[in-house]
């Protein structure tokens, strides 16, 4: 039976590429059953966060040990980009897990499912960044998104949480529809023979002239689908509401991990499959980038809720990163995004840790809650100061380093107008970031004292703050890492 044997052989040969993902699947499944709901039922639920953290660390090690290569009939590929963005996703998930533990404890909402869903979602991201086929890409995207829909609506007792969950699910399903429709149009325009990204690029080059509208529409719809996932204007409207309503650790997760993964896939898809039709999507994408920068930063100005502020600021940051997606050199773009996303991840992790820290008595949601933090908790306020300065891209913080690198690339690629716009809007962003700082340092503290929540948070705050603060000194080392983000 040669057919079956060849299948078998291919499977055995390709399986090593998926070892980290498989590991997550198996552990996640076992956590649900029989461990979580049968064998270890009496174990305190909060311990699952520690276990999940360890699992993620092991996955990280596995990712490092995964060999580069291509497999599953060209559906999945491990290269520098895959590894790099997988690392981002895992680190983001690990930070989320640490942040979740005290928050869920306080709300008495610990459960195995929560952590298992994070693991499954992470596995989806890990597949997504390595997907080299429209089908596997879409499947991974859905795996990632489905878990997050549930996580967003995890707090079933809170109306806001459910609303956010359903909103995200509906709009997400809708955007998935756009994405799949776009993909199908591309597939058809390319002759209906292949969904492999590299092959698509060649096929699209050979497509007949009258298929132009079809290709363009397809590309724009795919762009819309990805625009939704990374929350770029005009597909961003869900993000403030969802960020606001989701449990805070999940907001942290949402603003980092899926974004990193989607951007990684974004670069790969547009850099390889749609490389030949760069002209089709360059202008729309630069419009999206510009609109994101402007809208994100301006809308953030009037926010009173910390989470909404971060939602808008995250739209703006995505706007900056889209500059790198635009790059003609997909690999350089991926490198810039990776570096930016890494620093963004650290900053967001730290900021959300601070927010959760203050949420002990329902504080931290509003910027007002930060009043007088410098007096109450000077170290925390200092860390927040560092994060805010870094998010604003003020030297010598790490955020500046990443932004500098990104803008440098954009200039080199000739997007001068957009970069100038990025600079200007970045200046606007300083206002609302520094407003938080001013609130912490120059406003009188309210009565009462928040309960400190768990030491894991302090570790996250300390570690990320340190990295953000001295990260620039690690410049050469970071550049070395960035250079490893290779797109085969």
């Amino acid at each position: 039976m040669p057919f079956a044997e060849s299948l078998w052989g291919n499977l055995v040969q390709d399986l090593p590429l998926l070892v980290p993902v498989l590991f997550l699947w198996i552990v996640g499944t076992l956590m649900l059953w029989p461990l979580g709901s049968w064998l270890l039922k009496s174990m305190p639920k909060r311990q699952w966060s520690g276990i999940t953290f360890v699992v993620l660390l092991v996955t990280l090690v596995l990712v490092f040990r995964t060999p580069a290569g291509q497999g599953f009939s060209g559906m999945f590929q491990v290269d520098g980009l895959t590894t790099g963005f997988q690392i981002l996703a895992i680190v983001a998930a690990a930070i989320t897990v640490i942040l979740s533990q005290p928050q869920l404890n306080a709300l008495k909402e610990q459960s195995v499912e929560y952590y298992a869903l994070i693991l499954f979602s992470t596995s989806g991201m890990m597949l997504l960044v390595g997907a080299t086929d429209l089908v596997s890409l879409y499947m991974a995207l859905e795996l990632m998104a489905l878990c997050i829909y549930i996580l967003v609506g995890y707090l079933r007792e809170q109306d806001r949480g459910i609303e956010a969950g359903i909103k995200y699910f509906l709009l997400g399903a809708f955007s998935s529809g756009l994405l799949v429709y776009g993909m199908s149009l591309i597939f058809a325009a390319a002759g209906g023979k292949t969904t492999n990204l590299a092959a698509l690029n060649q096929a699209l080059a050979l497509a007949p002239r009258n298929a132009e509208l079809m290709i363009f529409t397809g590309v724009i719809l795919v762009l819309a689908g990805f625009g939704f996932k990374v929350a770029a204007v005009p597909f961003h409207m869900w993000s403030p509401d969802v960020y606001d309503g989701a449990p805070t650790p999940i907001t942290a997760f949402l603003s980092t991990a899926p974004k990193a993964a989607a951007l990684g896939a974004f670069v790969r898809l547009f850099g390889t499959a749609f490389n030949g039709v760069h002209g089709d999507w360059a202008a729309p994408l630069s419009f999206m980038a510009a609109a994101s920068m402007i809208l994100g930063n301006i809308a953030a100005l009037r926010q009173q809720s910390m989470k909404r502020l971060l939602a808008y600021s995250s739209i703006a940051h995505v706007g900056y990163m889209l500059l790198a997606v635009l790059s003609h050199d997909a690999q350089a773009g991926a490198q810039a995004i990776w570096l930016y996303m890494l620093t963004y991840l650290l900053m967001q992790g730290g900021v959300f840790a601070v927010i959760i820290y203050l949420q002990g008595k329902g504080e931290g949601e509003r910027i007002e809650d930060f009043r007088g933090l410098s007096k109450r908790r000077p170290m925390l306020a200092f860390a927040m100061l560092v994060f805010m300065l870094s998010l604003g891209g003020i030297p010598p913080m790490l955020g500046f380093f990443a932004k500098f690198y990104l803008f440098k690339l954009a200039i080199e690629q000739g997007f001068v107008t957009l970069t100038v716009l990025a600079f200007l809007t970045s200046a606007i962003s300083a206002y609302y970031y520094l407003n938080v700082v001013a609130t912490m340092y120059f406003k009188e503290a309210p009565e009462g004292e928040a309960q400190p929540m768990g030491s894991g948070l302090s570790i996250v705050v300390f570690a990320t703050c340190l990295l953000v603060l001295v990260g620039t000194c690690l410049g050469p080392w970071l550049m070395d890492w960035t250079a490893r983000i290779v797109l085969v």
Partner: protein
Amino acid sequence: MPSYAPILLLILVAIALPVVIWNTSRLLRPSWPSAAKASTYECGIVTVSEAREKFTVRYYLVAVMFLVFDVETVFLMPWAIQMKELAVFGLVEIGIFLFLLLFGYGYIWSKGALTWE
């Protein structure tokens, strides 16, 4: 674009047909409405409440579980037909598939989704 013409035609027909039929019957039929005639027809039984009734969430659970096992048969069917060609490989694959479903089954069972009281 001549090749799309039949589709367009089909759409037009699809829209036109109900419009035509409904209007024709409205024109032809006698119309003597009464309260009893205008009420919802429910197997000849007198209606008791609104049609938008809340069901217990367990029905949905059962429905979802049914769907899962329904899909299972969809996968099992082609494998059964091609069993000989796929040989060991197919057996392992379907084994993994069933194993996963079994895990899910174990999970919902231990979660108490199957206890009905």
